[in-house]
């Protein structure tokens, strides 16, 4: 058998393994079949390990054959030839294995595998054990599809899967309203960023006539490609992609969702918001980095956004009182720096930074539930309490400024409050006014009260998610 054929089979398997896991777990849940915890654990192990081995095998073959790009084309998923105009529609199923996707796929499999094994024990006899693993499989599939996507449409499909699974996992403990509210907030931010990505995809289609990354970014393997867009088009498309990345990676001004996401179970917090999901925006910027090169303004915006996010998160992290939120902001600080590195054109540095940071943060988050135990051990070992020494800036910065910064950090930069005040509340107010006007109109037409639904009473006091 020829090597390209073997690579293609392995590449398909890399995507098929989590897809099969999702199909099995999802369909059995839909049919109401209750798989035992052991069966779920074994299936998850099998899918993750075999997918990881296939990815490593591809890496080995690429190194052995000195090949830097392995494109795997599975043909047209949808094709609409248009005889009347130049606008054909093609949805190509294409995966690429290159210096960016292979490390990301291996990272995803390693971290998901670790967290899968951890979650099997952590969620033992939890009522939502099966539901967690369905969402876990959806997340894994989304991550793998996004990582190896060869077209922007395929990337979008994976991107959406990651978003949905993340939002539902934030709301995992769904018998309480708070996780559910936070899940909806995460989903709302993701939908906004997904919309930006979709518009960028359509704009790229119009600018270049295709959504294939090889066509968009030049034929050279990553990171050598050169995009063929005008600086103006690059600024527009790149701006949209930056919004998409900012939403997914919780960059300013979307950072408010990251601490909210810590409502989910620790394994999902570790894998999604500490390690993989939060780096997905940076991954997108790396994938489209040839577009960033075309516009100095765009590159400057990426650097600025990264630095602002890093500064904001570094300040906010200092005052958090629970370990998961503190780690979330610490994670965001690093993500901000990674984004700045991408803006400066340091692509390999950014990639190495992502891999190292994701592994470290997963370890820290998985250790988070035992933090108090660790502290006790440490204090027992040194024979006394750990003391806090004031740092350099605490001694030098005047107290009013420190207090101001403290309040800023405690309120997490007022980002959530600003979004509520200037986006959610006006939106709800406008549409509630429209609703009242419609009521008046139908009451007038009906010649009396027209809404039976007004008499429907709420089951619990639920508050208002939207404002």
């Amino acid at each position, binding site marked *: 058998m020829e090597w390209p054929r073997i690579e293609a089979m392995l590449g398909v398997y890399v995507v098929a393994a989590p897809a099969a896991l999702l199909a099995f777990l999802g369909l059995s849940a839909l049919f109401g079949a209750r798989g035992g915890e052991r069966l779920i654990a074994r299936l998850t192990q099998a899918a993750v390990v075999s997918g990881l081995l296939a990815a490593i095998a591809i890496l080995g073959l690429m190194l052995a054959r000195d090949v830097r790009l392995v494109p795997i084309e599975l043909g047209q998923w949808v094709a609409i030839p248009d005889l009347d105009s130049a606008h054909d529609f093609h949805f190509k199923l294409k995966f690429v294995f290159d210096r960016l996707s292979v490390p990301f796929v291996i990272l995803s499999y390693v971290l998901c595998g670790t967290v899968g094994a951890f979650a099997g024990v952590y969620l033992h006899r939890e009522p939502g054990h099966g539901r967690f693993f369905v969402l876990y499989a959806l997340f894994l599939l989304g991550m793998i599809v996004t990582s190896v996507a060869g077209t922007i449409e395929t990337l979008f499909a994976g991107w959406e899967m990651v978003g949905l699974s993340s939002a539902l996992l934030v*709301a995992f403990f769904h*018998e309480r309203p708070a996780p559910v509210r936070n899940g909806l907030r995460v*989903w709302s931010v993701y939908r906004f960023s997904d919309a930006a990505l979709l518009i960028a995809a*359509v704009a790229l289609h119009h600018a270049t006539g295709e959504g294939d990354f090889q066509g968009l970014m030049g034929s050279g393997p990553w990171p050598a490609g050169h995009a063929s867009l005008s600086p103006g088009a690059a600024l527009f498309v790149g701006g949209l992609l930056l919004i998409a990345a900012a939403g997914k990676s919780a960059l300013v001004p979307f950072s408010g969702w990251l601490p909210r996401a810590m409502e989910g179970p620790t394994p999902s917090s570790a894998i999604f918001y500490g390690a993989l999901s939060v780096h997905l925006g940076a991954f997108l910027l790396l994938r489209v980095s040839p577009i960033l090169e075309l516009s100095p303004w765009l590159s400057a915006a990426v650097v600025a956004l990264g630095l602002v996010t890093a500064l904001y998160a570094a300040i906010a992290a200092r005052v958090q009182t629970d370990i998961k939120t503190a780690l979330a902001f610490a994670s965001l600080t690093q993500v901000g720096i990674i984004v700045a590195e991408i803006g400066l054109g340091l692509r390999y540095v950014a990639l190495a930074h992502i891999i190292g940071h994701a592994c470290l943060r997963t370890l820290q988050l998985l250790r988070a539930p035992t933090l108090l135990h660790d502290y006790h051990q440490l204090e027992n070992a040194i024979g006394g309490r750990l003391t806090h020494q004031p740092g350099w800036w605490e001694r030098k910065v005047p107290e009013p400024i420190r207090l101001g910064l403290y309040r800023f950090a405690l309120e997490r930069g007022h980002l959530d409050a600003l979004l509520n005040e200037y986006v959610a509340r006006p939106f709800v107010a406008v549409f509630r006014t429209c*609703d009242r006007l419609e009521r008046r109109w139908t009451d007038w037409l009906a*010649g009396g009260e027209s809404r039976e*639904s007004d008499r429907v009473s709420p089951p619990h006091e639920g508050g208002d998610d939207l404002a």
Partner: protein
Amino acid sequence: MTELRFDWLELAILAPLLGAIWTARIRDPDRARRHCLVFAGITLACAVAAWLDFHALHAPLAHDRWDALAMVFGGEVFVIDELSAPLLPLAALLYFMTILATLRTKVRRFSFSWALVSEAILLATLGCRAPWGVIALLAIGTIPPWIELRSRRKPTRVFALHMALFAGLTTAGWALFAGNAPGSTAALCGAGLLMAGVLIRCGVAPAHCWMTDLFEHASFGTALLFVTPIVGAYATVRLVLPIAPDWALRSIGLISLATAVYAAGMALVQREARRFFCYLFLSHSALVLVGLECLNPIGLTGGLCVWLSVGLSLAGFGLTLRAIESRTGRLSLAGYHGLYDHMPILGAFFLLTGLASIGFPGTIGFVGTELVVEGAVQVHPHVGIAVVIAAALNGIAVLHAFFRLFTGGRHVSSIPLRARLPERVAALALTALILAGGLFPQPGVSSRRRAAGEIMAARREWRGERGMSRRETASATILEQFHTDHGP
């Protein structure tokens, strides 16, 4: 014209009519439901057979083999073409699933015989291409819901006023248009009236309040069956698309786009489940119109794809809401119900159908939504982006409703609320269709592309046949030039 191998079309229309007469004689509602289900099943089988038969013929148009009605009326009354071929089984499937998933608690409220009458009228509408026939059948189709409202002593004025206006405007519009020389002022007025009538039937804002009113007062099943086949879009394709000038269609497209965003926003702020569903549906049906009025093959194909996906997914979504309502009563969205532990399958199905409607990857709506976005951006490069905004808002609305109904607390119930076998069958059948259509979209998209080609060909042919007077040509050229330069 090519003939089907059997009289599938007439049988598909006759079976529910006979069924309506048969079930009207049965007093026991549970027995009536079972009999009704048999007739709905026969109808579905005939509609599927018509579709398969038509598909095997590889013809653009076909009619029944013996065509009894043609002998009476002297022309092909019912025909099947690329547009209507999948719509017929879709409509029959919606009725079958709704009747199947009607619980005993609802059988006394839901009139099975009138449901079968509505099904016959709907299938006849979808099998009819003649403008007068479409207008008459659409007008007749508004009578069963009105009768239900009357019999339940509910307010009918809002619904009746809108439907009367729709019937009056389309009738007057077509009479003016067809009875006068093309390009004359009377014909142009006729086209305008026709478009206004069709827009009312489609529920385009601000003429959409009849739909919210119907969901307020009619039984959920009746309201669902009246709106989910989106016959307003059918009227648009048969009556408006062939005759309307490009600029008029683009203007209607913009109004539909505004409706899609407006209804998506309204869905987000609703405090009751039926109204939420109604706005969600309005937003999606407006997206279908946006696609249809793009006047390019991509957008038109997308509109037709979304039509099918919305029909399937939102019908499933509505059936789930109806199933929950039949257990708990009218559902408020102002608080958390926490029903997931009682009905996990219905919860999963609610989420799946909701996600399919917004075009989530791997579901039937994904490709259609992408095509509508592409088509809309081709026609309106800046405003077309509103399609994406509407889809984003709808996505938030769907998850908001899911969280409100299934999470956020623990519902206490002394009786089991889990899904019954018929509901599970309906849910799983629709799930299979939603996922199969999402994972293997090419056959469906190709079929819709052919239908789009035929619609565009009909439009070209009609305009060529009618010819354009010098005055109309000049006015059309000036208007189109104006809209090219300044936007509609």
